[in-house]
């Protein structure tokens, strides 16, 4: 099948992305028509143009994503009854026409593009309108209409031309928004930031049942923590539950997002088709449902549409000649965790060079792209902690789930970064629910070895609750890991301001999430100078 998921499309952030009908029809079976309808590439005579809906269908809000110089993807999902038991949001099971407008102004007096897409029941009436013909580096406003109902207005922004030299670029990255452990106060503050982009590094939903009455936000529906979701309608309703949060909706409506998933979007610490609860062929079926619901609820382009248990999420985005983001997927292709997962000492298998956290295809794609890159800053945007992290004061105690559990994978990236002279490598990560800033060393076992890049690990939006600024273990871990510059165990997100001369990371934290209304402060800031690896605390 040529053309549809061509590596050429994904490997170059400059290649045209507009889907052609010929490319789609070549897929065969797999909801090819639904995809075409949902992205606006074709229309249909049988979609209902003026449906009678029971209520406002835009209760999950709007979103935009994957900005390029001439296009952006616009998302919404029709759900007048977001948590309807069958997972279809209270919709009748027929295709519905949804119209959209993209305007240069907030009042929609200067409409740049308008069109329609078709929401189908097989995609839970979600739409992913890929709008082309936009101008680079420009703010736009968008909204959807169904019948007489109008959605909230969203704001988005295209990226500059690939050859442009922007003088500044601001983005924030976030992860780990466990509903039950607290409020999304961090997102409420994020809306007030002046950003070009938001990147989400995974754990957008959490798949377990209720943790119990002592948690700040009860999860609707019955169940105990062990009532893990597995079926498509359950994942759809979990996503819908999360999207009813006003702060999350506002964060989506304010900026374009780039999203990639992590383990809790499917099942805790899954590794490709491995999870101890199910044999691989059955776990793939659960993964199929989880991936499907993830695509249905995030502003992803057609290139990320899942095909059975597979979903192409790793991709590249540029911001002019200033930054190139390599968005990675360290879950879908990784080998099973070594030595029974968790934190282990003396685990030989983690040093096996045949094991990989990216999988050989993605690893090759990453290194080839880094080699070819001409941008000032080169980012690895990915899920789990990248640098060495020795726990509990024990130099040998490492996480089998993070890159420490796949050390040769990391070695290959580190030698790639040095041998190919990649300009200003920066790794951003999530997963661990704490803030960490660290120098990436050529050899982590030698603290005096060369610093070749920087890692900014961002804390959770809400997992695992309020937290504290500097717990006892943090002081110990700073000592055992001399390449660490900073640890904080509160909730929040990281804001980055990038110019040709400097990269600045601000760790934004809230003092609590167990109640709404917390203020936000910058706990620490770090800068990197262009051409001089290593961060300075400001």
């Amino acid at each position, binding site marked *: 099948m040529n053309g549809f998921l061509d590596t050429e499309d994904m490997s170059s952030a400059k290649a045209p992305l507009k889907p052609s009908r010929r490319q789609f029809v070549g897929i065969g079976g*797999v909801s090819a*028509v639904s995809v075409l309808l949902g992205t606006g590439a074709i229309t249909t005579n049988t979609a209902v143009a003026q449906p009678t809906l029971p209520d406002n269908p835009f209760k999950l809000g709007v979103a935009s994503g994957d900005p390029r110089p001439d296009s952006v993807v616009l998302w919404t999902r029709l759900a007048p009854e977001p948590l309807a038991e069958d997972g279809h949001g209270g919709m009748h099971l027929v295709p519905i026409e949804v119209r959209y407008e993209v305007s240069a102004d907030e009042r929609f007096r200067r409409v740049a593009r308008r069109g329609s897409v078709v929401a*189908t*029941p097989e995609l839970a009436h979600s739409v992913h309108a890929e709008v082309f013909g936009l101008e680079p580096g420009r703010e736009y406003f968008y909204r959807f209409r169904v019948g007489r109902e109008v959605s909230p207005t969203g704001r988005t922004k295209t990226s500059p031309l690939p050859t442009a030299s922007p003088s500044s670029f601001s983005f924030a990255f976030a992860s780990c928004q466990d509903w039950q452990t607290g409020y999304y106060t961090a997102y409420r503050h994020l809306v007030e930031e002046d950003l070009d982009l938001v990147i989400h590094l995974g754990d957008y939903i959490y798949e377990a049942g209720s943790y119990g009455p002592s948690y700040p936000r009860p999860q609707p529906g019955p169940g105990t923590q062990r009532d893990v979701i597995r079926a*498509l309608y359950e994942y759809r309703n979990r996503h819908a539950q999360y999207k009813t949060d006003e702060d999350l909706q506002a964060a989506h409506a304010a900026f374009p997002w780039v999203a990639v998933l992590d383990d809790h979007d499917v099942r805790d610490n899954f590794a490709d088709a491995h999870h*101890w609860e199910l044999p691989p062929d*059955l776990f793939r079926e*659960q993964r199929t449902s989880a991936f499907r619901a993830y695509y249905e609820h995030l502003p992803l382009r057609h290139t990320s549409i899942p095909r059975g248990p597979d979903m192409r999420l790793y991709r590249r985005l540029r911001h002019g000649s200033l930054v190139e983001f390599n968005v990675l997927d360290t879950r879908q292709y990784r080998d099973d965790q070594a030595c029974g997962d968790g934190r282990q000492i003396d685990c030989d298998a983690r040093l096996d060079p045949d094991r990989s956290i990216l999988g050989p295809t993605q690893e090759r794609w990453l290194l080839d792209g880094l080699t070819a890159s001409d941008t000032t800053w080169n980012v690895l945007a990915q899920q789990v902690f990248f640098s060495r992290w020795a726990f509990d004061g024990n130099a040998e105690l490492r996480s089998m789930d993070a890159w420490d559990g796949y050390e040769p994978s990391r070695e290959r990236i580190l030698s790639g970064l040095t041998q190919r002279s990649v300009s200003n490598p920066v790794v951003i990560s999530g997963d661990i629910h704490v803030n960490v800033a660290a120098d990436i060393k050529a050899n982590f076992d030698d603290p005096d070895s060369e610093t070749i890049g920087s890692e900014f690990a961002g804390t959770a939006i809400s997992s695992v609750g309020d937290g504290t600024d500097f717990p006892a273990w943090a002081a110990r871990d700073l000592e055992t890991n001399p390449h660490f510059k900073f640890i904080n165990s509160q909730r929040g997100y990281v804001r980055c301001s990038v110019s040709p001369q400097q990269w600045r990371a601000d760790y934004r934290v809230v003092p609590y999430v167990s109640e709404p209304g917390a203020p936000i402060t910058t706990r620490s800031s770090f800068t990197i100078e262009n051409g001089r690896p290593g961060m300075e605390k400001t």
Partner: protein
Amino acid sequence: MSSNSDLDGASLYRRPLGPVRDLRATTEPAPDLQSVELDWGPPQPDRVIDYYTIYGSRRPDFAPGTASLLARSPVSFYRHSELGPDPETWYYRVVAVDAARKVGSFKRAPQVAATTAAGLRRIPRERLRATATSQHVGYEAARALDGDPATIWHSEWQPPAPLPQSITIDLGANADVEGLTYLPRQDGNQNGIITEHAIYASDDDRAYIRVTAGNWAGDATTKSAMFSAPGTRYVRLEAIEGGGGYAAGAEINLFGPAAD
């Protein structure tokens, strides 16, 4: 943008959803209560399935309804458990529901049947005594025989005694033993849940013969083993691997041949 009404008809999800494929029902004899495992293939490889509805009845000519609705399954496998101990015959149909909420036809769904074995006779607990190669104070071997799932045997953890460790049950007199059930701890903690195991039998507490070995899943459900140990006085469960590197158990039961 072009209009393509011819493609509507081709849209996968506007067409009826076919039956599941290759539905099988299998049952293996277990010491106590029995189970039937159903597995099957999805109706069509390209169509995303939301869940499967499992129907079952003691009668072959049954209709879909609340009485015959056993469960919904998110994946193409279902275990129908807690059956018996008398033999039972069950008839099953599985119907798929797809991502567009198209439901397969019950009438055209294939039907399979399975008959469970008779359960064995449980050897009364009062006659049994247990010892272990390793135990922690308050978590002695006897706790695995006291009929209370909240009390457990647990190998020593201060300091941790490395596996393998074992628990040996003295029946007090020679008997024919044909099965063992192992109930792991029920408190949500994975430490000590026995996975890789071996079972030995002896009539003199000196020479032990291995009667079976295997791997149990690392979850808290009841596990079982069937074997042949005629004229046995001692039965030993050896934990070769267990959660966290420990061995623990809430309840162990032994079974002899069913009474005539």
